[in-house]
């Protein structure tokens, strides 16, 4: 049978063999945690602790500001040594709380487990908000906002994203294989919250072990496991919806407009921790991999662990890396150094050698239309980029630049090495700035 997928997309070498067979290891505590207050889409949280104060593991150290915002919690017990700007994965210095662990790793006494059968939907959403749960796929959008759709938008289909289409990353793969229970309890809770009729876990066919295991685990439940053809960017929300349901999210719209909600499998696990165990989101699975690291691993890391510590835990560097990327190679953020901390969206740390990132000089567009074929949302990347570079914002917008998901497929296939995504991002930012000013 032909496996389902979306139209467009690319097939980069997946390079998951580095770490896909490695069981998850617990990462030892670093000497110092740097917990950024801005880790999610929306308003950054505000520090609610002082220097010198002693905090327990899971205690709130940054409180949410506004609806689209979540609190931040202490990853371990210890002393607050600083509340100041520190280098952040986004490229600039941003406010962070620095914690020196006391080694006891003692949970806050206020956090109590609960029986989900006693909780209403609103209670559950509130617990998820308090626990600071965000989308764990990388974008880090607050989960409680997604869980509170307006009443007129009925969610009929709930899709869980176990695709992990980014090359190199194996964090979700290992989690689904080793902790299916944690994920499936979250799946059931979210199905209850949304009242969805259909629940699908989408997994790419390059993880047959996961598909077998989940099918066994879900036998007799309404949860459907769907094997998908291997293709990037299948893990993007709109592409996953297209692959699973065949439906298309309207331009400028949200999945809920067509009655669909998408959550990452790791988010489901975090919802389990938040609702059933009452525990905030202070750790996640992160793949440390790439040719420049001695021993690639899948680690369970605390949020705020500096990257230098992750490198040490993985046996150090083989050579000075040519590129340090947080996340996958396609949509991850390139880092300036190892002094930045991991955040809730850190699905991986990828270390490439200089020879892996050799750059090609930009050439002229030869109108081969490979970018058009690769674009998963059917845009004309070369045309939009050309308009954006000339600051023709009206035309850039007319060609639907705002619908670009910045997946990088066009730049990947471009034989002339034109920085298409950068040009489109530049255009999008200029359009937004113009709208704000007018």
């Amino acid at each position, binding site marked *: 049978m032909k496996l389902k997928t979306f139209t467009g997309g690319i097939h980069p070498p997946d390079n998951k063999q580095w770490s896909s067979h490695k069981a998850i290891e617990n990462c030892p505590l670093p000497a110092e945690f740097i917990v950024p207050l801005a880790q999610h889409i929306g308003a950054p949280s505000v520090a609610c602790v002082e220097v010198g104060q002693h905090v327990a593991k899971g205690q709130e150290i940054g409180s949410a500001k506004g609806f689209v915002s979540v609190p931040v919690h202490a990853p371990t017990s210890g002393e607050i040594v600083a509340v100041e700007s520190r280098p952040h994965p986004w490229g*600039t210095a941003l406010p962070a709380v620095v914690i020196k662990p006391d080694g006891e790793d003692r949970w806050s006494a206020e956090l109590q487990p609960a029986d989900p059968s006693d909780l209403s939907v609103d209670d559950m959403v509130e617990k998820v908000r308090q626990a600071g749960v965000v989308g764990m796929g990388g974008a880090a959008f607050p989960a409680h906002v997604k869980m509170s759709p307006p009443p007129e938008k009925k969610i009929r289909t709930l899709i869980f994203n176990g695709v992990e289409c980014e090359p190199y990353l194996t964090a979700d793969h290992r989690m689904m294989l080793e902790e299916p229970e944690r994920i499936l309890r979250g799946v059931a809770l979210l199905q209850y919250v949304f009242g969805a009729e259909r629940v699908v876990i989408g997994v790419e066919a390059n993880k047959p072990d996961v598909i077998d295991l989940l099918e066994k685990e879900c036998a007799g439940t309404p949860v459907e496991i769907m094997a998908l053809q291997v293709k990037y960017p299948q893990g993007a929300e709109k592409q996953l919806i297209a692959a699973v349901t065949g439906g298309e999210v309207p331009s400028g719209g949200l999945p809920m407009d067509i009655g669909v909600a998408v959550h990452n499998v790791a988010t489901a696990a975090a919802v389990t921790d938040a609702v059933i165990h009452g525990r905030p989101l202070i750790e996640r699975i992160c793949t440390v991999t790439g040719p420049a690291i001695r021993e690639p691993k899948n680690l369970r890391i605390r949020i705020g662990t500096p990257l230098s510590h992750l490198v040490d835990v993985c046996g150090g560097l083989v050579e000075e890396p040519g590129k340090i990327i947080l996340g996958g190679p396609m949509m991850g953020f390139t880092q*300036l150094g190892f002094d930045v901390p991991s955040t809730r969206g850190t699905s991986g740390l990828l270390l490439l050698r200089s020879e892996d990132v050799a750059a090609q000089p930009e050439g002229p567009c030869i109108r081969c239309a490979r970018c058009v074929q690769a674009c998963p949302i059917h845009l004309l990347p070369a045309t939009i980029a050309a308009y954006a570079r000339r600051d023709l914002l009206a035309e850039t917008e007319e060609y639907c630049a705002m619908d670009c998901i910045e997946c990088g497929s066009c730049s990947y296939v471009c034989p002339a090495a034109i920085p298409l995504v*950068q040009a489109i*991002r*530049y255009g999008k930012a200029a359009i937004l700035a113009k709208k704000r000013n007018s």
Partner: protein
Amino acid sequence: MLASILSLGGIGLFAAVTLGFAAKKFAVEVDPREMAALEVLPGANCGACGFPGCAGYAKALVAGTIDLNQCPPGGADVVTKLAHILGVEASATARQIAVVLCQGDNRKAQLKYRYLGLEDCTAAQRIADGPKTCPGGCLGLGSCQRICPFDAIEMTADGLAVISRENCTGCRKCVAVCPRDVIHMTPYESGVHVLCNSHDKGAVVRKYCQVGCIGCNICKKTVPDSYKIENFLAEVIYEQDTEAGEAIAKCPTKCIMDFNVGYPDGSSYLPAVADKPHAA
């Protein structure tokens, strides 16, 4: 033969009559002063006056809704001519020109990463606040050079924008496009500038730039009237800068420069001390 001559001739005659009638009937009245003003204006359509082009400014001038000193590229000369056309008193303003307050090119200032993307400063600034470690220095990708309507900006081989004192008309297009606000408007009469735009502390500046201002106060001690230090950055007080040049030799990082004597390293521009054609 005859039929074709008649039919074509007929069409021609009809079109001529219609066009002639339309030209009379729908003629647009243009104030002759507006045409005269448009003649005088530089015609660069740079937009410094706030209108899309010179024609819009000319129209507003005749309508009397705007001052006639709003055309920096024209300078005092144009103001006088406009005043003559419009029959009003001339109110000339001192000439202002743009200066890049930075001389930290890619050789003198440290880069935090190798930038390979679009040749555009705004696009580069969006990636981790730009490839230069200095938060205020010139990125050297030439956005100002490309937007300048008067060919008054050059990029040195090491990536530094330099503005010609003589060619700059003060239209401020480069000031608006620069994502790092490193281009400042200064009086044409003032040739001495502190070429640094970093407010970081001296020890920090020293780490990433050989020619940055470290806020050491020596210039202010030498010529107290001509310099002020704010947030670890010295600045010339242009209203009283006659003695400012005396501090140039004292500056430990050589970040004060007199453009009447020379331009930053790598520039092909030559100082023109004797001749100041635009001076008001």
